[in-house]
């Protein structure tokens, strides 16, 4: 019986029922539901399948394997931690949105066919936008609309792809992986270059690409995440993009095209991250960069790379969540996360400082932190497959990550020059959530075996050891000299200051360029139209007026005719009917 409940449903249904509960019960449920969902999900057997049929189509609601399982587990943990983090606030909108959003993402992970995937794919889009709108500002409303357009657009592409695929093959099932030898994995849709891709493959590829924030499709992420509420950004950071990574992993593993795409994703956002002033936006760029590693991992598609991707996603959700929590706490207390307005908060928010620094160390992949045991797998896999340039870019990006996430975030928020702000330490529930996340970041970095046991492929067979002298030493060199470079640049005064600014990105195309073009076209049309309209309205009004007059009382059609006229009408009708017989 309990197996008949799809994972995620507990969160969705529970979330939807939440508004009916009193405040205290809501808060308890907010934390209990993810825990209950996790407990329920864990006990599902690995080959569990739950099929259902709609009309005449057989669909698969749930299909459990090791890949969906690890994403399911980390999604539940993320929901649980975020729930704790948001306990201080009593906003039913965010609570419902957060729970249904995470539930939708979990259900999407376990979807066994493209249609089910589409349903929950759209569900995550629609529920998550409320986390942005929950800021309840004009700005967040507009941002939310842009976000929603992109997300729903992604869903529409997915549906289109599914339909085309169904027409071609008669099936929408998500097939299991194929093993091509050399431990190279192929997803059901994998292709090596766009030239050989079918229409269905392309459509779905771009559907996933939007959510995974591929270069040029990425801007919704940096646009939306900094506009969400304190808790909303934490919810958002965990699910949408990682769901896309999961889907890529499931369907495009081993697609070579993903490697340059991923490499680009690791490299270019960090330039923006360096000059960005809004620290939550810095983290959004950094998130984009981290996704790059995973996309590269999916593209390489070896067992080691897939394991690296899965474990990196797992670790990433925790430390990125932790960083967003830290910045959220700063925003909550200081009222801003602009680097130019912050600084010196470490005295007032010591715990937050420590926890954020743990997150920074984890994202930078310091040895003994979670990033180290996962990211190095992807780099090694790239090296193993002789992707030399990719490897160098990843290495460059790793140094850069440390630079902007590892140093810049804590430095400008907590150290640097004293901003003079007098703030309190973060609320207890935030500290607890951050504490657990920080503990997990360190815990995974040290006791990585439980995580490795969850990975899709047997780690023992891969002969992988994260901690050997060469790995540790080279990684430390990379990071420490990056730090040295930071000190050097600051000393030289070359370090770009935090300035109040907006940095234009791809979004310029639609937020400014197209808008300006549209406005200009609109103005030109307006002139022509006004002239035309006045003419047309003159005529149209005349007709309307006449119709009105005719049908009003007193008009020929709005009032019965005199009996004589009526009788004549009858005679005319008689003639007309007689004419029928002659014509």
């Amino acid at each position, binding site marked *: 019986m309990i197996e008949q409940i799809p994972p995620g449903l507990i969160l969705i249904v529970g979330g939807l029922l939440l508004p009916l509960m009193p405040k205290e019960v809501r808060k308890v449920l907010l934390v209990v539901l993810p825990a209950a969902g996790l407990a329920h999900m864990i006990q599902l057997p690995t080959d569990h399948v739950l099929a259902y049929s709609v009309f005449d189509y057989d669909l698969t609601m749930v299909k459990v394997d090791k890949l969906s399982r690890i994403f399911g587990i980390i999604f539940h943990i993320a929901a649980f931690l975020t729930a704790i983090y948001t306990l201080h606030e009593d906003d039913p909108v965010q609570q419902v949105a957060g729970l249904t959003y995470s539930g939708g993402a979990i259900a999407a992970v376990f979807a066994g066919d493209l249609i089910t995937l589409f349903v929950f794919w759209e569900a995550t889009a629609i529920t998550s936008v409320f986390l942005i709108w929950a800021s309840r500002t004009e700005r967040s409303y507009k941002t939310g609309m842009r976000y929603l357009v992109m997300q729903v657009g992604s869903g529409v592409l997915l549906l289109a792809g599914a339909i085309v695929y169904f027409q071609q093959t008669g099936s929408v099932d998500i097939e299991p992986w194929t093993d091509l030898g050399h431990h190279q994995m192929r997803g059901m849709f994998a292709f090596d270059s766009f030239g050989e891709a079918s229409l269905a493959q392309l459509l779905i590829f771009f559907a996933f690409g939007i959510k995974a924030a591929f270069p040029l499709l990425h801007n919704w992420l940096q646009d939306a995440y900094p506009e969400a509420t304190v808790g909303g950004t934490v919810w958002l950071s965990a699910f949408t993009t990682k769901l896309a990574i999961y889907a890529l992993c499931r369907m495009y593993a081993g697609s070579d095209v993903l490697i340059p795409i991923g490499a680009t994703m690791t490299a270019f956002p960090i330039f923006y991250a360096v000059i960005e002033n809004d620290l939550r936006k810095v983290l959004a760029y950094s998130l984009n960069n981290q996704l790059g590693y995973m996309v590269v991992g999916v593209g390489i598609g070896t067992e080691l790379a897939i394991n690296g991707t899965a474990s990196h996603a797992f670790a990433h959700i925790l430390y990125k969540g932790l960083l967003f929590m830290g910045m959220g706490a700063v925003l909550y207390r200081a009222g801003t996360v602009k680097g130019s307005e912050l600084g010196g908060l470490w005295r007032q928010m010591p715990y937050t400082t420590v926890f954020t620094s743990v997150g920074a160390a984890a994202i930078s992949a310091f040895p003994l932190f979670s990033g180290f045991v996962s990211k190095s797998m992807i780099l090694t896999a790239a090296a193993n497959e002789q992707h030399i340039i990719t490897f160098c870019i990843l290495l460059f990006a790793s140094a850069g990550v440390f630079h902007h996430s590892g140093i810049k975030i804590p430095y400008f928020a907590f150290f640097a020059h004293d901003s003079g702000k007098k703030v309190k330490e973060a609320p207890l529930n935030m500290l607890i959530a951050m504490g657990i996340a920080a503990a997990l970041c360190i815990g995974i970095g040290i006791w990585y075996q439980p995580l490795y046991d969850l990975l899709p492929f047997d780690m023992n067979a891969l002969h992988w050891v994260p901690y050997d002298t060469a790995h540790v030493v080279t990684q430390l060199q990379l990071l420490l000299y990056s730090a040295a470079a930071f000190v050097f640049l600051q000393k030289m005064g070359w370090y770009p200051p935090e300035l109040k600014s907006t940095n234009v990105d791809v979004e310029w195309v639609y937020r400014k360029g197209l808008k300006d073009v549209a406005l200009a076209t609109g103005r030109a049309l307006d002139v022509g139209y006004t002239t035309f309209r006045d003419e047309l309205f003159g005529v149209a009004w005349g007709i309307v007026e006449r119709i*009105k007059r005719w049908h009003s*009382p007193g008009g020929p059609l709005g009032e*019965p*005719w005199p009996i004589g006229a*009526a009788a004549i009408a*009858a005679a005319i009708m*008689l003639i*007309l009917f007689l004419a*029928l017989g002659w014509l």
Partner: protein
Amino acid sequence: MEAPTPHEVEVVHRTLTDHLPILQVIIPLLAAPLCVLLRERALVRGMAIGVAWTCLAISVTLLQHVMEHGVISYAVGGWDAPFGIEYRIDLLNAYILVVVSAIAAVVFPFGRGGEGLALNPARVHLFYAALLLCLCGLLGMAATGDAFNIFVFLEISSLASYSLIALGRGRRALRAAYSYLVMGTIGGTFFLIGIGLLYQTTGTLNIVDLHDRLQPVIGSRTVVVAFAFLVVGLGIKLALFPLHQWLPNAYTHAPAKISAFLAATATKVGFYVLLRVLFTIFGATFVFTTLRLHNLLLPMSLAAMFVGSLAAIAQTDIKRLLAYSSIAQIGYMTLGVSMGNVDGLAGGIVHLFNHAMMKGGLFLVVACVVLRTGSAKIDDMAGLGRKMPLTMAAFVVGGLSLIGVPATVGFVSKWYLVKGALERGWEPVALLILLSSLLAVIYVWRVLEVIYFRERPEGAKEVGEVDATMLIPTWILIGAAVFFGLRAELTSQVALDTARMLLGTGL
């Protein structure tokens, strides 16, 4: 025609059930003079209600019987068809009988006695006598299978309705009744001329017999002329645009309760006779293939839909608004006929039933309003939404049905009409049906806006909700409009079967 000798006395044991087709008609016929003799208000009223409910029971029994066992034939006076007068009940008129008697059963009890009619109390028994005669005429037209008999009952119902309309307030009611009388007489005469020509050609008046005997001479001039007279005569009776001139004034100036009864029944029976004439007497082949009636009926129907709706929008009197809306609704029915296919015809037939319910209900609402406020001006309905919430809620539901909102009967009929139009390949017509529904939105909204969003003017007469004797009939009709909207299969199945019958065998 040689007269057959009356047959020898044969002792056939008939049960009361066998006489139902005639009882349906003679019960109101005999009740009318009884009203005159009894004179006592309460007694007369009780009897009229009793008669209406008896008729309803009879017609429902007949419908059941027809659905189970097929056509019922009753030879009046023991003279078999085609020589004697035959009462012939098939699916179509069994259905009409139910509609008419059901409306009567609901409308007759409306209001206490002559309340709201502004009648001289000494004349109430005559009012009920006329009402019963009108019912008798309408039921007779539906029940009989004899063309001349149809004319007789047409005149009975018409004469009764002239006098009923004349009961309305003021001299304008008299004038309306008079012009209805003139137009009705023209219509009746045309109908009679048509029958005369047919009789001359075939020597029979029995409808079924007429059909058979017409086939050899179907294309002749006489038949075509007869056809034209019959259709135009009936066109006046059922108020088909532009022959509708009598209707707005008649419905406006008649007492509201009478408007409700006539709007829900009189034009419907006229429409029924039109169907009989077109399909049973002449046959679908002649009408649609030889004459191509749709070339004329379609534009007339469309004009009715648009002129009626547009004129309804412009009216300032609620009864007039509903009257013009009726013209539009009749347009929908004849539109269904002009399609000449099963879905379209079924749409027309089901709309007959549906329109009877919703328009009857709406006129009863107006009767309530007139009784309380003493005015039928739309502007005088301002703010009634709060004063008469139940009555006005009925108006809302009825109005939605008039528009054709899903879950109301109006939607069901429009659904079949659109389906029929598309099947016929008349996409623009389907579009026009939807467009005219939009016009209905406007005129219904106009009233709702006044009812709910305008304040009751200062110093206006204090009004309250009407009592149960009015609310219950109103809500029965309005409730039926929703019930049959939700359980559309109950009516549409009968309509589809009927349409198939009419188009298939013509019988």
